C-alpha cells in the first residue's frame, strides 16, 4: 500500500515539476511551485 501511495505522489510531483519548467506565465509558475511544495513535503516527510 505504502509504495503505491508514494508512487502516486511522486507521479503528481514529477508532473507538477515538469509543468513548472515548461510554463511561461509567471503567475502559473508560482501556482505550480506552491502545489509542488505540498507534494514534495508529502513525498519525503510522510513515512
Amino acid at each position, binding site marked *: 500500500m505504502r509504495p503505491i501511495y508514494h508512487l502516486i505522489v511522486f507521479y503528481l510531483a514529477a508532473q507538477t515539476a515538469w509543468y513548472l519548467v515548461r510554463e511561461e*506565465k509567471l503567475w502559473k509558475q508560482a501556482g505550480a511551485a506552491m502545489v509542488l511544495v505540498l507534494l514534495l513535503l508529502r513525498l519525503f516527510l510522510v513515512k
Partner: protein
Amino acid sequence: MRKPEDGPKLKGTPRLSALFFAALVAAACFFSGREFRTMRAEEAIYPSPGLTVARHLSDYFPPLQGTPGDTPVYIFEGPAKGGTVLVLGGTHPNEPAGFLTAVLLAENIRIVRGKIVIVPRANASGFTHSDPQEGSPQRYDIATTSGARTFRLGARVTNPVHQWPDPTIYVNPGGQTLAGIEARNLNRAYPGRPDGNLTERVAYALMALIKAEGVELGIDLHESAPEYPVINALVFHENASDLAATAQMALQSEGLDFRLEASPPNLRGLSHREWGDAAGIMAVLLETPNASHGRLKGRPSAALVIDGRDKFYERAAKLGRLFVPFGPEGIPLKDRVARHLAGVAALLDSLRELVPGRAVDIEGAPSAAAVRASGPGAFLHPPK
C-alpha cells in the same frame, strides 16, 4: 494542461523564473520540513534518582519495538514490599495536565514502600501530530528554575501517518461499535489486540505491562472540555469503588470538588472498564477541565493551554452551559496539574487505609498546594 506555446511569451527568460521558483520550492521544503520533523522528536524526561529501572513498552510486547507506539516506562521501587500502582499520562496527548503530572512524578519521587510504574506518553504516536482543523499550538513552554522546558501538544488520537485508513465503523476489542476515528483512540482500544492496529497493539502492550508488573491500582490521567459532564471527576471501576469513594471524601475535605462517576459496564474499551474487567485491578480515571480542547474556545494558543483563560468559556459559564465554574481567572494548567497530583495522593492514601499490606508510600512528590503556588515548572528538572 495548457501547452506553453499556446500562451503569450513573457518578457525576459521564463526558464530563469522557473529556476527561481524551483529554488523557492526547495527553500520552503527545507525550512517547513525541518520544522515538521521536530514534531516527531521526543522531549527529554529526567527521572529522579529514585528510578529503579527504565524500560520500554515493547519490553512487555516485543512486536511493538521500532514502531511509533513504543514509549518509555519508568519503574520506581522502594526497599519495603508493598503494592504496585500504574500512573498513565498522555493517553490523549492534547490533554497536557495528565502528561505533565506523570512527568512531575517521574522527575521527583522516591519510593519508600511498594512500586510505581509511570508511563508519561501512553500514546506516543499521538504526540507526533496535532488535531486537524483546530489550529492548535504545536508546543507550550513551562518555565523552570533555570530555563524553559518545551513540550509538544499532541492530538487526541494516534497519528494517521502511523495508522491509516480509518474504518467507516470501528468495532473495538470490547465489541463496542464506534465512529471510524475512534480506531485511533487509545482509550477505546482496551484490552487491545496483539494482531490489531497500532493503537490496539499499544493497548495490548499496556495490558501486558499491567499483568507483568503485578499492577493492583491503575490511574489514567485525563482532561476534558468544560462543557463535558464527566469533569473534575474520579471515574472508577467497581473493583475500586471503596478506594475512589474514600479518596473523594479526602479530596472534598481539602476543598477540591471531585465527582464520583461509576464506569458504565456497557461502555467498552476504556481504561477504567477494561483494566478492571480484563486484568482485575482497581482502575480509576481522573478528569480535569481543559479549555484548550473544548468546542467553545476562542483562538487556540499556548497561552490558553497554560493560563486556561477564555472569554467565550467565561460567557458560557454565565449562561449556565458548563459543568465547572469558569471565571475571568480561567482554569490554569498549574491548577489542573495540582488537582491530578492531589487525586493521585488521595488514591495512594486510600490504598494505604483500605489495603495496608499493599500500600505504596512515596516521598518527594510535589504537593498540590505547592504546584498551585509555584507552578509545575518549579518542580521540573531544568533543561539540559
